[in-house]
């Protein structure tokens, strides 16, 4: 045997301390509940936009303006935006947890993810509520019917 130094004892296996938090349970529940609601919202959205009436051909600035003039579609789209974004963000958080091994990588990816999510949610919400269906000085041919009144 060579006289190399005695190898350092293997660092003992250490489990994270228990968190005693119900966050993961609620996140898990939220994925299932938002998933079910999203099925209705997304297929309703696709049906109304792409199928009913003239279907895809009907989509233009006026069509979108017309929909967002109604509180019903404002709420519908707002719900879809928030649920899909939170659902998608939490899904990606799960994937980051499953695949990144270094805590620093984990942290960096999560920071990017949350910043992106906040930007999209805030911008999207602003668009839905501050949208002007009849901008002054626009070409009247693209505007919704009710703008001409």
């Amino acid at each position: 045997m060579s006289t190399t130094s005695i190898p350092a004892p293997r660092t003992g296996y250490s489990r994270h301390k228990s968190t005693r938090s119900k966050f993961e349970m609620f996140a898990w529940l939220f994925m299932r509940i938002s998933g079910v609601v999203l099925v209705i919202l997304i297929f309703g959205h696709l049906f109304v936009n792409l199928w009913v009436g003239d279907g895809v051909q009907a989509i233009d600035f006026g069509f979108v303006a017309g929909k967002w003039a109604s509180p019903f579609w404002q709420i519908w789209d707002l719900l879809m935006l928030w649920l899909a974004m939170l659902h998608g963000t939490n899904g990606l958080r799960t994937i980051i947890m499953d695949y990144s091994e270094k805590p620093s990588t984990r942290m960096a990816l999560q920071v990017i993810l949350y910043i992106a999510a906040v930007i999209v949610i805030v911008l999207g919400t602003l668009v839905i509520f501050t949208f002007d269906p009849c901008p002054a000085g626009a070409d009247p041919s693209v505007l919704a019917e009710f703008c001409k009144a």
Partner: protein
Amino acid sequence: MSTDTTPAEPASKIDLPDHVAGDAGSIPSFDCTFRIARFDPEQDSEPHWEEYNVTMYGTDRVLDALHKIKWEIDGSLSFRRSCAHGVCGSDAMRINGRNRLACKTLLKDLDTSKPIIVEAIKGLPLEKDMIVDMEPFFQSYREIMPFLITSGHEPTRERLQSAEQRQAFDDTTKCILCAACTSSCPVFWTDGQYFGPAAIVNAHRFIFDSRDEGGDMRLEVLNDKEGVWRCRTTFNCTEACPRGIEVTKAIAEVKQAILQRAF
């Protein structure tokens, strides 16, 4: 003195048809190659592949081949085994990419025209060849308190249980703690922090036992960041379990029990 004229009894009283009796007793033998991931911690920094050619028989299992290699070709090959009959849970290893018990995997069920690939199970610290450090596995097993918890005085007779009550956790009593499930789980591979299917299976065994009173404590333990919610229903564990336990279903039942307690 009279001579016995009756003909001698045949060796067998049953007349076997030729196609059965023809080669009776001879077991087909075949040559096969084993590609084994060898790791010697004193020399290697990474496991490397070695090939071994052995002549085996139709009744042999992967464990018999490993024995043959160890006893006749290379005595330094290291693996754990004890019972050799699928009871002790010592010899879980990755055979052709799937976690199985070497002692329950018959060679005739594998494709012997190609090399049979044998590696240590993944996600646990490798010590030598097929031997891994099982401590992380047993640590999470201990954390779920795998023993009967009761209150009050010990009864003077058995703790009775109906057949239905017993049925609720029958499946999860079969676990032999081989770690085939936990070491097949991609969530466990990442950082080894997830409790893992085996710990949840053994918690299930007591949570759903009508005689046990520690269910709430165990559900609390498994409602952790690294508990049941990390399960992604990949079903690798159910496929890996050599005891045929419906592992993913047991995990789902524990999830449900936690939700029922919370709401």
